[in-house]
């Protein structure tokens, strides 16, 4: 029997297997989505025709805050409620080498042999905002593979990673006692995206003060009674404390979103935002490509003061627009 290479297998049967719960098939489809190109488009078409019902929970927080340990415990609790759970753990790529160490799984190994749990590590591959550009499509694919809940874990350092909130239904921000005494700006950013705060390691000194600090910041927001007020939930992951409370709060947020909290509107907004992100990434790609090879002609006319940078920019933009006016090769997806 000659095995067909993983990378050229026909997509439709892979997709059918993934929907039946075959982990290897889903793993391969996720690689295809990550790689981009026409095969990724083929996956996207199937996904669009078979939307799932998975509820997406985001977990973010500073390195070491306890995100992976909490994720592990949430998965266990969700399994106890018979949910099929997928985890997408996103870590930053090294800006120098483009490589990455993806080590979040280490804290979730207890679920490795559970057929109802699927864990995938993903590198951000240089996208500012931390969520890999392929992540939203990967999430839709996971949804199509009939998971009930997916947890998206990202490292949040200050304001950089805030865009996780665009792509999930409930955003959990993990903080620790003493958190953010000196990073007010970061706090303000996280305040905007958090649907619930988890104060992990709350057995440590300073937990009460940090909680009071968070609550007073929440008090100070411009908000009406109809708005969701993020609860602050104390937890001690290593002692398995607070996990039920986190899921209960997530359920309350979900119920609020689904009954007048505007989940449909929110999900529509994020598709628009995703489109915007793709457009930005592609244009950025083109601009970089244009300037990568030093445009000598342009340089000469700038130096000779025949044109100024503003006029030069106009002509560059026109060039990009003209390129798109005559339909070029199929739109590259591998940005």
């Amino acid at each position: 029997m000659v095995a067909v290479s993983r990378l050229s297998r026909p997509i439709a049967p892979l997709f059918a297997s993934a929907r039946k719960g075959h982990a290897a098939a889903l793993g391969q489809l996720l690689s295809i989505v990550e790689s981009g190109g026409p095969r990724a488009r083929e996956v996207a078409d199937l996904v669009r025709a078979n939307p799932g019902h998975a509820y997406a929970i985001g977990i973010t927080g500073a390195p070491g805050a306890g995100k992976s340990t909490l994720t592990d415990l949430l998965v266990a609790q969700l399994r106890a409620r018979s949910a099929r759970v997928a985890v997408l753990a996103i870590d930053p790529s090294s800006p120098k080498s483009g490589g990455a160490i993806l080590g979040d799984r280490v804290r979730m190994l207890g679920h490795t042999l559970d057929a109802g749990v699927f864990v995938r590590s993903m590198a951000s591959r240089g996208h500012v905002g931390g969520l890999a550009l392929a992540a939203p499509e990967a999430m839709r694919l996971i949804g199509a593979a009939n998971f009930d809940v997916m947890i998206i874990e990202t490292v949040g350092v200050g304001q950089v990673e805030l865009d996780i909130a665009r792509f999930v239904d409930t955003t959990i921000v993990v903080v620790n006692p003493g958190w953010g005494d000196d990073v007010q700006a970061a706090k303000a950013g996280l305040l905007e995206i958090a649907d619930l705060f988890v104060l992990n390691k709350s057995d440590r000194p300073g937990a009460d003060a940090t909680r009071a600090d968070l609550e007073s910041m929440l008090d100070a927001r411009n908000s009406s009674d109809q708005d969701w007020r993020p609860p602050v939930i104390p937890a001690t992951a290593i002692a398995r404390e607070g996990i039920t409370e986190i899921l209960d709060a997530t359920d309350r947020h979900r119920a609020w979103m689904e009954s007048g909290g505007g989940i449909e509107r929110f999900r529509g907004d994020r598709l628009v935002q995703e489109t915007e992100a793709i457009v930005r990434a592609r244009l950025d790609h083109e601009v970089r490509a244009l300037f990568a090879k030093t445009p000598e002609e342009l340089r000469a006319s700038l130096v000779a003061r025949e044109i100024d940078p503003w006029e030069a920019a106009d002509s560059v933009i026109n060039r990009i627009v003209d390129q798109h006016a005559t339909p070029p090769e199929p739109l590259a997806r591998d940005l």
Partner: protein
Amino acid sequence: MPARILIAKPGLDGHDRGAKLVAYALRDAGFEVIYTGIRQRTDEIVAVAVQEDVDVLGLSILSGAHISLTAKVIEGLKEVGAGDIPVVVGGTIPPSDQERLLAIGAAAVYPTGTPLSVLVEGLRQLADDDARR
């Protein structure tokens, strides 16, 4: 496209300095390295490899049980339809066992003392071949 590699430590030996060194060297060479820590069961390693759909699976074994552990991983990958993921073995492998590992299906063997540059180049080659097939 960075290549994805799983660095796994099957069996009972608890020393992962070598595995970590390799992981960092590969990260610096542009690989995406999935690292799962020490004392993994072979069926767990297989499950992780297929969920992560890695281009290469690297086993680090210092316990002396490299033949049986490697055989189990290769067999497990075949059983779940992922037999085309190349498996490489590093660690304390006596010269006499290197041929045997290759014979049971290992794609390469990197005994302790292999220069990191040789290892990185070899893995890059394997990942590229894997992508072309």
